[in-house]
């Protein structure tokens, strides 16, 4: 049976990145699933990784993997790969994973396949181009094959299994301790995480100015269990932090309901949200591309409709 590895990003408290659980769910369908977790929290994550189908987890809690960008982890992974010879290594398209996978491609000589949205087998992957309008199947190459998968491409489901822990003991040369993280600033979000929220309300340039985002906050607060997102145009304009960005260079969301307010529907935005179960759009331009993928489209002025919607939702919630 093929050996399929998942590189799992973990937090110091042992929390596993959701995308890694999605990848494990797919990995166990393709072969024998194993995981690699490096950095503080790794050994605490073993149980969770096992629950999602990893039979073995190669883990190390060593700070070196979190303190220095990419090089120590790429080195350790390479050593592990030489020793255990997996057929395929899956990474989620996250910041650190992307850097590590890129370096590993040079080390192994395997072509790294990016932006994967589906896996047919251990050597055939699918990607989407033109904002998801065209699907492309690609024959993977190399030993092992290396793939970066977009988050939310698969649904994470526990297998109820448990994993054996194998402690990683790799020497990391001082040479690899160069790009050092000296400070960490993470914004504590209130409410559900954007990636996990069942309802996402997003704003674009059509909101006119930064201050109008509070209308979206108010609506999200009323609905409850809703998160606010944004387009790159307004993130670049500084209206909201980058953490709000949805799309090709931002987050991928798959909520039950996506409300797009004053968003044109550029392909780079759509790739990040078209997996939503239901889409509602408000835009004053009836030709806006967002209407082509919306289940309900309202042609009108968002600044007029939003306050009315807030009142409507408030009264219906009673």
């Amino acid at each position: 049976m093929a050996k399929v590895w998942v590189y799992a990003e973990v937090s110091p408290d042992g929390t596993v990145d959701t995308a890694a659980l999605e990848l494990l769910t797919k990995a166990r369908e393709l072969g024998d699933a194993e995981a690699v977790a490096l950095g503080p929290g790794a050994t605490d994550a073993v149980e969770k990784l096992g629950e999602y189908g990893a039979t073995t987890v190669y883990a190390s809690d060593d700070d070196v993997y979190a303190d220095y960008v990419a090089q120590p982890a790429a080195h350790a992974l390479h050593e592990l790969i030489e020793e255990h010879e997996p057929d395929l290594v899956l990474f989620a398209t996250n910041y650190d994973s992307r850097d590590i996978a890129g370096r590993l491609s040079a080390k192994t000589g395997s072509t790294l396949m990016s932006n994967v949205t589906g896996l047919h087998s251990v050597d055939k992957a699918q990607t989407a181009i033109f904002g998801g309008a065209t699907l492309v199947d690609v024959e993977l190459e190399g030993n092992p094959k290396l793939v970066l998968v977009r988050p939310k491409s698969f649904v994470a489901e526990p297998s109820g299994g448990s994993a054996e822990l194998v402690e990683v003991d790799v020497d990391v040369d001082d040479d690899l301790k160069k790009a050092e993280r000296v400070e960490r600033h993470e914004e504590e979000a209130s409410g559900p995480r954007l990636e996990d929220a069942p309802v996402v309300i997003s704003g674009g340039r059509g909101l006119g100015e930064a201050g109008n985002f509070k209308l979206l906050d108010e609506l999200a607060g009323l609905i409850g269990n809703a998160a606010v997102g944004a387009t790159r145009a307004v993130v670049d304009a500084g209206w909201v932090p980058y953490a709000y960005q949805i799309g090709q260079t931002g987050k991928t969301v798959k909520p039950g309901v996506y409300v797009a307010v004053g968003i044109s529907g550029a392909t780079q935005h759509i790739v990040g949200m078209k997996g939503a179960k239901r889409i509602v759009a408000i835009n004053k331009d009836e030709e806006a591309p967002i209407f082509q993928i919306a289940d309900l489209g309202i042609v009108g002025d968002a600044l007029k409709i939003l306050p009315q919607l807030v009142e409507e939702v408030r009264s219906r919630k009673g």
Partner: protein
Amino acid sequence: MEIVVCVKHIPDPNIPPEMDGHRLKREGVQGVLDPGDEFGVEAGLQLKEQLGGNVTLVSMGPAPAMDAIKRGLSMGADQGVLISDDALEGADALVTARVLAAAIGRNQFDLVVAGVESTDGYTGTMPSTLAEFLGVPQVTFAKTIECSDGRVKINRQTADGYHVVECDLPALITVTAGVNEPRYASFKGIMAAKKKPVETLSLSDLGLSGDEVAVKQSIVELAAAEERKAGEVVQDDGAGAARIADFLQEAKVI
């Protein structure tokens, strides 16, 4: 300070892309310097203004890629290197990194600058693979850059904030859109660019051949994705908000 900036020539992103068999059509399509790489060029120029030195642009691509280099030279870069070879058609990120590493590695450098991801391919991994081939560390997703004697410090974008990352040179850095405000090429800059040196290299000039640069990954099938159908689009006649509230109720979110 010797600064190398990777610049990619891409089909104009404002023109809808077309396929030519299994590849993006490039012939007859107007090309531009990847807008993402303008931030890289600007970053290089600002560091040079601050610390002195040279900015060298490096691009791999067919002959028209010279336009991307010219554009960067017009902005103020000092010189260019274009690697062009028929054998490189369809090159993937691994091959591109190997070729750029061979070209960049010929000379001593302090900093290599690249975009986080290209606008046309958005592979987003070429720079990291390049850093490994060059044997240097990488500081990626830079939102801000500070550079002083032999050391670079950036704010590295993360999903929910940023990290401060510091590193000794030589190193490779990738820049996000927004790290700076790319300057326009002035008329004087455009005229000056015509006289700036650009070296054109083939694979054999770099001592690369055959298997090292063969593209191994292949597209086996293209298909249209299942389309999301457009639903109802209605003019807001004052009842728009109520319609949305009905929709939210049907979806059981309120």
